[in-house]
């Protein structure tokens, strides 16, 4: 019995370790945190941002395992939704950048100056696709 508990404990710990390490590796590769510190000029606070990610991951785990309910007004969902969206947007942008899409595209189509307009195509496409999905697509 004790061995069983120990074994389950070990397996859970190992799984969590692997997922946590993978999550951080993903964030590092896409460079979201460096980008945020660069934008806000807070390089010296970067270790605090690390803790924010760690606590966020723990809070998310707690939420998905325990189903807590806060009974807050729906308005609270707006800033949280916005923050979630910005984060995913930065991940998507980081991924686009890691895959070298734009430099190659700009060279091919010969439009170095108008590349901002192409970025806007992707940005507006993301917004439109997301809105379309939540407002119509899910009801189909």
């Amino acid at each position, binding site marked *: 019995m004790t061995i069983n508990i120990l074994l389950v404990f070990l397996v859970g710990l190992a799984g969590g370790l692997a997922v946590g390490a993978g999550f951080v590796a993903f964030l590092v590769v896409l*460079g979201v945190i460096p980008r*945020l510190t660069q*934008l806000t000029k807070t390089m010296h606070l970067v270790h605090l941002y690390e803790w924010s990610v760690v606590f966020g991951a723990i809070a998310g785990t707690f*939420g998905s395992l325990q*189903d807590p*309910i*806060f009974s*807050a007004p*729906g*308005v*609270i*969902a*707006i*800033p*949280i*939704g*916005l*923050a*979630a*969206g*910005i*984060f*995913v*947007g*930065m*991940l*998507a*942008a*980081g991924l686009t*950048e890691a895959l*070298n899409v*734009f*430099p190659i595209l700009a*060279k091919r*189509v*010969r*439009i*170095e100056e*108008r590349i*901002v*307009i*192409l*970025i*806007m*195509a*992707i*940005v507006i*496409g*993301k*917004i*439109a*696709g*997301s*809105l*379309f*999905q*939540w*407002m119509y*697509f*899910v009801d189909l």
Partner: protein
Amino acid sequence: MLEVNGMENTVYIRMRNRVQVKSNDTVFLRDVAQIISRDNLHEKLECLPVHKVTTKDNNIIIIDVMMVIRLISKAFPTVDIQAIGPPQTIIEVMIKRKSVSIPLFILVWFLLFVGSAITIMNFHEDVSMQAVQQRIYTIITGKQEWKPLLFQIPYSFGLGLGMILFFNHFFKKRINEEPSPLEVEMFNYQQSLDQYVILKENKESVRRLDDD
């Protein structure tokens, strides 16, 4: 005594990295390199023709520093040449640039627009985004909602905002003056291309056995 003489006759040249010329131009030494030398020599050096662009040339020409040294020492046998910096210059022949056709541009724009819309929808389906959002909404408010739009609409606009933040572009206006990751990425890509043409177009830099 000899040393003093040598110093006086020293010519320092530093090849420029990238130079753009028009087709049928003659490329002078001042175009491809920065020169430091005695004053009376300077003007003659500057006007030394290095290369005449002809239609036979590709649109990239590499001028090796060795070739420049050979040229200078032929014209001025007594000078001592010191080369500093990059060992070659990339000459880009600007053939009359075709302006981008508007329909093609619109097509690319539309392609990217539809593509990224589909990609984000696929991503949401892939990670069960809706189920997660419904649950987050329930955690926050305690209410069950099939379409928690109060969460989802800010989320959708946040997506775009996050991308703009990442690329540091709000249309043309910058949020701060550091180069954006995109510009750094474009620079790196250009560096790699330059590296490639330097080795590929410069006949002197690679020697092969089968010389045909």
